[in-house]
């Protein structure tokens, strides 16, 4: 077996604002080339912190105290700023959560889509325009010329998210971090966007870290999944195995808590207090540093 594309090991982080409270506790996970890894958990689980650490955009109040983020063997936490800048956007890119705020409202789509191509890949304005056109076609935008000429407010939420997906894949990155990319979208648009991300990822052989709170989304798009609670990995494995035969009681409880339109008698079981007690015990025993 070759080395994974990304290997996070023993990652610990604390919040300086909260008097050094741990927010990541010994997190380890891997992403292979072409693999979609779901990072799932409720609020406060630490899934977004991991995504931000990967992209080098942790808030100043969050401090990594131990661990490595090995991307193709290089520890992102130890790289000089210059090398990190070369990697970000180019080899690791982001699909953000909120398509309303992620684009600059004062610049046309073309400018925003071609910046990276011109600065990081050295394309001429003309070459970049051609590449941007074909990228928009690849994300199934019907009138790519018109969209390139548009400002973000002239596009629907779903269209903007397509533009952001095109931008994320523009430089042929090896790893895409998708941070709750469909949370703000209607359910029918969500399905199209999930289909698109999976299609792009398969076509380009890209590894994806897919952050979500929705186990249904995990089931439909992720090959593997890491479930977190309060900064700790609770369960990890192939998505099919974790969902069909979860090992941890918290995983089982989360699956039972979600309402299901197809099984009205099954969902909506509140997570029992005993499950949270068990989680607290495990965290106290294994705690972060």
């Amino acid at each position: 077996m070759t080395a994974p594309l990304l290997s996070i090991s023993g990652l610990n982080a604390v919040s300086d604002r909260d008097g050094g409270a741990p927010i990541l506790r010994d997190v380890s996970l891997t992403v292979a080339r072409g693999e979609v890894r779901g990072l799932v958990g409720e609020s406060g689980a630490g899934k977004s912190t991991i995504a931000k650490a990967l992209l080098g955009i942790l808030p100043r109040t969050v401090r990594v105290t131990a661990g490595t983020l090995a991307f193709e063997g290089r520890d992102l936490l130890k790289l000089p700023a210059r090398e990190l800048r070369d990697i970000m956007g180019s080899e690791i890119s982001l699909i953000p959560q909120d398509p309303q705020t992620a684009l600059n409202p004062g610049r046309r789509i073309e400018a925003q889509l071609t910046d990276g191509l011109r600065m990081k890949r050295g394309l001429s304005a003309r070459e970049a325009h051609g590449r941007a056109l074909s990228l928009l076609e690849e994300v199934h935008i019907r009138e790519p010329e018109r969209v390139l000429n548009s400002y973000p407010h002239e596009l629907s939420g779903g269209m903007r998210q397509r533009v952001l997906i095109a931008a994320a894949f523009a430089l042929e990155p090896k790893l895409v971090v998708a941070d709750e990319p469909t949370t703000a979208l209607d359910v029918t648009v969500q399905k199209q966007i999930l289909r698109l991300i999976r299609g792009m990822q398969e076509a380009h052989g890209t590894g994806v870290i897919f952050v979500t709170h929705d186990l249904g989304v995990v089931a439909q798009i992720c090959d593997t999944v890491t479930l977190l609670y309060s900064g700790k990995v609770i369960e990890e494995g192939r998505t099919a195995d974790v969902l069909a035969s979860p090992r941890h009681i918290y995983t089982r409880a989360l699956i039972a808590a979600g309402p299901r339109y197809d099984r009205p008698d099954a969902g909506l079981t509140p997570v029992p207090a005993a499950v949270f007690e068990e989680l607290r015990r495990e965290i106290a025993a294994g705690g972060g540093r």
Partner: protein
Amino acid sequence: MSDTLLQATGIEVTYGTTRGLLGKPGGGHKVLHGVDVHIGRGETVGIVGESGSGKTTLGRALLRLVNTSAGAIRFDGADITHLPEPRMRPLRRRMQMIFQDPMASLNPRHTIRRILVEPLLLHRLAADARAAERRVAAILERVTLPAVVLDRNPHELSGGQRQRVGIARAALLEPDFVLADEIVSGLDVSTQAQVLNLLKELSADLGLSMAFISHDLSVIRAVCDRVYVMRHGRVVEEGPCERVFAAPASSYTRMLLDAIPLPEIDPEWLTRRTESEDAA
């Protein structure tokens, strides 16, 4: 349902009929195109749709919080469509609302005590502050909030606790009808289950009629007796949840249902397209 509490017939709502931003007379934008809704006593009715479907506007029209440009609304046998505000006021206590974002609907500068006690005094449901406090203590227990929250401000509570305060505030006034608009969409699943179960119990105990607005069909299925599916300001399907979810008549309902990702492996789900998705 034979005993109808709230009935809306042919409701139309048009926004922006006044002058536009640049002084141009605006033609207005119709967001509800003749909607019929009826809610029986003790019945919980779901209103589901995507953004822009008009579900929130419909809810507000039912409570007379937006003006209707056509149609009629009857509450408890009386026509309230054009009832002037002073005559609406006594009905306001009987028609309560629970909001999507309790952080925005609970006054951040008031303690939970003040948020819960004041409406009781305002609507003269309690003789004095002490009587009001006793009722507040009882409802807190009912929504499983500890008494210590009384001296806190909304931002000091968790999202689930805040939403329980919102439910308590509505239930305290002993309404006949409650409108709940996306009240669990900001909550984690484990908290969501608690809040929804609480709401179900309360509405059964108090015999409430409820309109439950949500974009989430699974949530609707869990709490509602009957459902209205809305699209572009129209009702595209209506019926008992059992029937609509098992055998949806409208292709749009089928598309909405199929778009929900379930937490089990379905290798065809991502590529499967419904007929209306192709048409869209």
